[in-house]
């Protein structure tokens, strides 16, 4: 076999193999990485009645929302801290901004503590001490007809 023909056939085999690898890797990568491009739309969700929230402290509210979790639709329960000072209502996300543990509200100190790595947040969610890089996330909230509505991914 001439060296030219040998080289030529080798090159064709290489191209075919690249095609074969691409044919499996391309679609599978797209399939597996698809969640990276999914971001939920935001909407208003009713979480509580304003009169249910005591004044001057944070209260943990659990609300249920129909969510699509992968392949099934579930009524998933969520929890959030609602703080009311008079007419002003604030929704504080309980996920620690450090690594996502649930912060615990301590009524006597009016602070949020993270049990995992010791983060401490003040009553409005600002960092007091510990490793968290930023304050707790505050969600947009509005009160309509006595209902507290939370703006979140739906």
């Amino acid at each position, binding site marked *: 076999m001439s060296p030219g023909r040998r080289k030529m056939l080798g090159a064709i085999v290489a191209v075919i193999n690249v095609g074969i690898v691409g044919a499996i890797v391309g679609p599978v990568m797209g399939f597996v990485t698809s969640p990276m491009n999914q971001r939920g739309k935001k909407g208003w969700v009713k979480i509580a009645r304003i009169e249910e929230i005591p004044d001057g402290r944070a209260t943990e509210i659990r609300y249920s929302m129909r969510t699509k979790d*992968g392949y099934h639709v579930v009524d998933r329960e969520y929890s959030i801290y609602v703080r009311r000072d008079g007419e002003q209502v604030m929704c504080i996300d309980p996920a620690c901004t450090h690594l996502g543990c649930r912060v615990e509200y301590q009524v006597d100190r009016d602070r949020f503590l993270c049990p995992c790595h010791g983060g401490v947040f003040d009553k409005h969610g600002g*960092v007091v001490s510990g490793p968290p890089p930023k304050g707790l996330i505050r969600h947009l909230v509005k009160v309509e007809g006595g209902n507290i509505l939370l703006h979140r991914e739906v």
Partner: protein
Amino acid sequence: MARTPLPIKEHTISPEERADETRVTTHPEEELRLARPSLRDWLDLRLGWYGFVRKNLDEPMPPGVGWWQTLGNLLMTLLAFQFITGFALAMYYSASPETAYDSVKHINTEVPLGNFVRGLHVWGSTLIVMAVVAHTLRVFFWGSYKKPRELTWLVGVFIFQVILAFSFTGYLLPWDQKAYWATVVGTRIAATIPFVGDALLYLVRGGAEVGSLTLTRFYALHVMALPAALIGLMGIHLYLVRRHHIAGPVLPRRGKPVPFYPDQLFKDAVVQLVGVGFLVYLALAFKPALEAVANPTQVEFAPRPEWYFLGLYELLKIMPSGWELVATFVVPTGVTLGMIFLPWLDRSESRHPARRQWVIVTGIGIILMIGLLTLKGILETPPPHHSAPADLKATKTSDSS
């Protein structure tokens, strides 16, 4: 039937010789035997079995090789146990948030020997981490990673990583509180990486939150991708170990190499017996735990990782605000890269610890730091631990008991 003329050979060949020789003889009896071979000979002709077995049993062991060189074999045995118990568990396990917890509970409480088989798997993971650490340290202190064994070490480092990935992905599968929250925190670590962190978090979790797609992702990795990777890497590792032989003591000793069988194989068997015995004892004496079902809304739960991740956990605690990337990314990546490039960082000719001081000192420093942080994590009183009150039900994963 036409036969190729046989080269002349004066004597009848012994079974040992037969292993390597082309089976040709002029001796009439022998020729008859080869014409109607025993099953063993028949198989040998097709598989080359005698040669393979003899090559491995006669593998030369340099003088001074002994008990320290049994750890790799122990690790392999424990991994085989893990593979078999994992296969058995997969027959009862169901990877969905709605069923995972109940299926594991079913294994624990109803399936005959369920506690034992799951115990072997759970305790096996701990013993494997201990064995792989011990094996790695032995190779490190003996300097066995030096030329020409750089790639053996490199593949070993990848095996180490795969084993840690096994523990991390396996941890979520029971879908109890500990599993769920350790995964929430563990996956959030990915999100701390600048620029790509958020996308990575979605990729690892299969969405914004730890949910059904996280579970199926982890399960797929745990039972498909990681075993395939491990088997491939182990194959290369063993091939390289056999190709370059065991390194032997740091200072070569006088004497002739001894075959692997029977002395070293006997030591291996003793260590395997002790290791497996200990594993069986642990599985029988300490039933594998299953906490309350995963509950994303429960605020009171303080997750703690498995003991071998406690060092990292403590490091995360002591990092001041804004420095978490150091603990989540810089330190683990640095240690891993250090391990990967160790054979090229350590340029000394000698394998003797005294002749490669900076490597040994750095190594001991890192080991001490990890050890101290782990100890701190173990000694620290765990935060008040609440299991889920009866009135709390998780997302459709109600505890049916």
